């Protein structure tokens, strides 16, 4: 007999343990027939459809009969799953990406290619870690016995981490100062040390030397001013509107010329570009995109400082 009810019952019972299939099937048929009878609807086909629609998705009903969670990873394993996933993504992934980038750099001596292979392994290894871990936890949550589940989730307050002091912490400004200082040092160093060795033995800077009779200076001064302001923010006692304005000026001095040079494709030494890329030239869109990202980061930084300045003003 191939009625709609029969199809529905089959869909449910094939998803529950074999031992109870026959009994559940019989009961389900009787129940659906009872419900149908009570409807007292002349159009039997329409009534049957309505009753089955009310019973709902057979997969869901079967899960209820089998007392199985309707989730890939049940609520009892979810916290452990998130912890392990975060741990793996934060430790294994960077190591693998770094190793693959270094290996690529050593083998091909091509920074662009190494960055590409780094991004590639970031995506593939990240997806692999995610997929396998999810599969493992799915199997665990399906086949683990109930009281065992309770044991794996036993959590104690010892696992709590100390609260990070978000307010007035010195860590963020110090990190920011270090970053700006490193950029300033790199900017000068690449011009003085001429780190790139061309095929013909010439030593080249990375950035265009012509910048030093122009826009390199506001960038350098902006960076140094940012370092000073960061240090003041970290260790100074007073914070006032003047330091917010200082940030605005310094960030503008650093970001605007940099974004303009990248946009104008005037940032790199042409000889260096020729050595690295050969005859290939990066599409203009890459430069415009990078310039926009630089501008966006600069604006975000300024907005953060303005907000902090306002909060500090209100707090006093």
């Amino acid at each position, binding site marked *: 007999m191939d009625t709609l009810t029969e199809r529905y019952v089959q869909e449910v019972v094939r998803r529950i343990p074999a031992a*109870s299939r026959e*009994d*559940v099937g*019989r*009961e*389900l048929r*009787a*129940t659906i*027939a*009872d*419900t149908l009878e*009570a409807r007292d609807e002349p159009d039997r086909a329409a009534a049957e459809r309505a009753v089955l629609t*009310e*019973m*709902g998705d057979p997969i*869901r*009903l079967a899960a*209820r*009969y089998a*007392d199985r969670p309707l989730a890939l990873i049940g609520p009892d394993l979810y916290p452990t799953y998130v912890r392990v996933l975060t741990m793996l993504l934060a430790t294994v992934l960077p190591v693998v990406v770094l190793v693959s980038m270094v290996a690529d750099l050593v083998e091909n001596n091509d920074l662009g290619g190494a960055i590409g292979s780094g991004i590639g392994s970031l995506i593939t290894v990240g997806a692999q870690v995610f997929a396998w871990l999810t599969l493992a936890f799915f199997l665990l949550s399906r086949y683990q016995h109930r009281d065992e589940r309770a044991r794996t989730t036993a959590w104690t307050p010892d696992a709590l981490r100390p609260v990070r002091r978000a307010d007035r912490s010195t860590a963020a400004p110090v990190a920011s100062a270090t970053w700006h200082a490193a950029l300033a040092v790199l900017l000068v160093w690449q011009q003085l040390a001429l780190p790139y060795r061309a095929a013909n033995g010439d030593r080249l800077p990375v950035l265009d030397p012509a910048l030093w009779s122009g826009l390199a200076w506001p960038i350098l001064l902006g960076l140094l001013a940012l370092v000073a302001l960061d240090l003041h923010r970290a260790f100074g006692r007073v914070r006032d509107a003047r330091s917010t304005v200082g940030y605005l000026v310094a960030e503008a001095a650093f970001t605007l010329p940099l974004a303009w040079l990248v946009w104008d494709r005037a940032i790199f030494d042409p000889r260096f570009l020729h050595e690295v890329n050969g005859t290939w030239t990066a599409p203009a869109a890459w430069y415009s995109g990078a310039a926009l990202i630089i501008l966006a980061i600069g604006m975000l930084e300024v907005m953060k400082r303005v907000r902090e300045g306002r909060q500090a003003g*209100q707090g006093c």
Partner: protein
Amino acid sequence: MVHSIVWRVDTAEAIASQAQELRRGTVVLACLALLTTPQYGYALLETLDAAGVAVDGNTLYPLLRRLEKQGLLTSEWNTDESRPRKFYRISAAGAAVRDGLIGEWHDLVDTIDRLTKEA
């Protein structure tokens, strides 16, 4: 300055969804209370419905089997009528659990009464 966000709350909707949470656990107690006389799935659903206990068939039928598996209900197929039906009735263990749950229920009502009087 203290920032505060006031959400627009649809009161009727909020009550409906919270009430559903409140009622969820009471279906088991209602079943245990009703099944002193044997009944089959659909008839029990109708009785519950008439008594004002709103529950869907796709929740009730699996629930009955689960209670049976836990030993709180027993079941028997009745083939006397034209359509064979599975009749459930409460077991001795189920009756003990029911009495315990009724005690819990009264405690809850007392507690909430006390709390709402003070408020």
